[in-house]
């Protein structure tokens, strides 16, 4: 099934033009993370596409549009700040599910995300420079702090893979199973991430890297969840530095089918409470 969506450097133009379906897009984003040539080409082409919207003929907006739209925004805002039931958020979720197939179904996060709305809405200026990768608990261990930018993502993965190889056994035992690109669960989020799964004699190792994540305030943290048929298991917590963070986790083969990163009020949750910011499918094999 994943073979249907083979992508290559030849596809970068199609990606930028917007002609890929969701699955091709995911596949290409995974390629992009490990291909510097495509990343630089994409940057050039993106500059081009910033100009595309400016080529259209001017058309006069309907009269009164401004007043109607500003009023609608205010309405949506009132509706969303009205206690727990946040209708604009619901709407956003609905539109989301129609435009992007929801990668993940995680009821606890959905029902609790409403309380989280507040923290999304307040500017998250505090804690902007949160520093080190924090790992709590016994199941996971810190590999190291990553603070690279997007250009370095691939290099980081490689480096991590080498570290793993060096730490655990000769590199012959290491095999990169697959790379899963993590995409925003909310359409407007610019975050992106990469989950690399590496297999060796000790089992599967998950390396999660994400960038452009929302800023964290106070005790907030990002938590990584592995899911089997929608049931989440905590795979660790991380903080970010300039919106970039990473995590390393070891697990048994074939246990999970999905991965999600949530934005949490603190690092202590045993179940997801916050909104999902990034998610991806862990296709078996």
């Amino acid at each position, binding site marked *: 099934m994943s073979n249907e969506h083979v992508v290559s450097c*030849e*596809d970068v*133009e*199609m990606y*930028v*033009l*917007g*002609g*890929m*379906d969701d699955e*091709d897009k995911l596949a290409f984003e995974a390629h992009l993370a490990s291909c510097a040539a495509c990343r630089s080409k994409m940057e*050039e*082409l*993106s500059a*081009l*596409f*910033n*100009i*595309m*919207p*400016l*080529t*259209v*003929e*001017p*058309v*006069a*907006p*309907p009269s009164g*549009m*401004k007043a*109607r*739209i*500003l009023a*609608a*925004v*205010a309405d*949506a*805002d009132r509706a*969303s700040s009205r206690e727990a039931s946040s209708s*604009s*958020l619901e709407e*956003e979720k609905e*539109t989301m599910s*129609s*435009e992007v197939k929801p990668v993940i179904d995680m009821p606890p996060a959905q029902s609790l995300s409403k309380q989280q709305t507040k923290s*999304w*809405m*307040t*500017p*998250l200026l505090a804690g902007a420079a949160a520093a080190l990768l924090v790992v709590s608990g016994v199941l996971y261990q810190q590999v190291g702090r990553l603070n690279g930018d997007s250009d370095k993502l691939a290099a980081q993965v490689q480096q991590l893979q080498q570290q793993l190889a060096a730490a655990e056994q000769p590199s012959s035992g290491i095999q990169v199973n697959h790379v899963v690109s993590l995409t925003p669960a*909310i*359409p*407007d*989020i*610019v975050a992106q991430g990469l989950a690399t799964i590496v297999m060796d004699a000790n089992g599967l190792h998950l390396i999660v890297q994400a960038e*452009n994540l*929302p800023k964290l305030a106070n005790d907030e943290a990002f938590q990584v969840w592995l899911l089997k048929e929608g049931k989440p298991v905590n795979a660790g917590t991380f903080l970010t530095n*300039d*919106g970039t963070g990473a995590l390393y986790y070891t697990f048994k083969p074939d246990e999970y089918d999905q991965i999600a990163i949530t934005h949490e009020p603190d690092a202590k949750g045993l179940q997801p409470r916050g909104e999902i910011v990034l998610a991806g499918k862990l296709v078996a094999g």
Partner: protein
Amino acid sequence: MGESASDELLIRLIAERDSAALEQLYDRYERQVYAFVFRIVRDAMASEEVVQELFIRVWNSAGRLRTDEAAGKISSWIFTIARNLSIDWLRKHGRKPLETKEEGALEREAAPYSTEQEVEHKMLGEQMKEALGELNEDQKQVVELIYFMGYTQQEVSQRHDIPLGTVKSRVRLALTQLRKKFDSTWKEGASP
């Protein structure tokens, strides 16, 4: 309320629920965004709907957006959401046949471009339009079908009976040519 407040500053203020900042951003983008959305959905009511949804998104998402230098431009974020919402609308409500005349053509705006940014955008837009005009018909068609009508490469291939590989190579050639063309125009003309 300086006319000069940057997009980034406005977004930061919007994140703090500053409705005056939203209004300022609205004024700055209204015409460009409306015209762009109208170009895609080709229906005045639908365009307003989409632009409304867009500004609700801006209001609700500003706090999540990075506004530092490393982040992308606010304008490209806005236009990306505008295109995504427009294409969602097309997928939900169907597209008008290509031959349909744009009704808005009648009410084309003669209003002068006031701000410096608008003038610059106008100029860049003209240069790009020229470059688009120099594509061959096949290339124009795939750009239109994919970028402005929101079809995927597979849909273009099926609906127009063009092998997928040909769709891909046309897109590749079109973009390569646009970039070349635009790069040289850029170098001769506008300052960066």
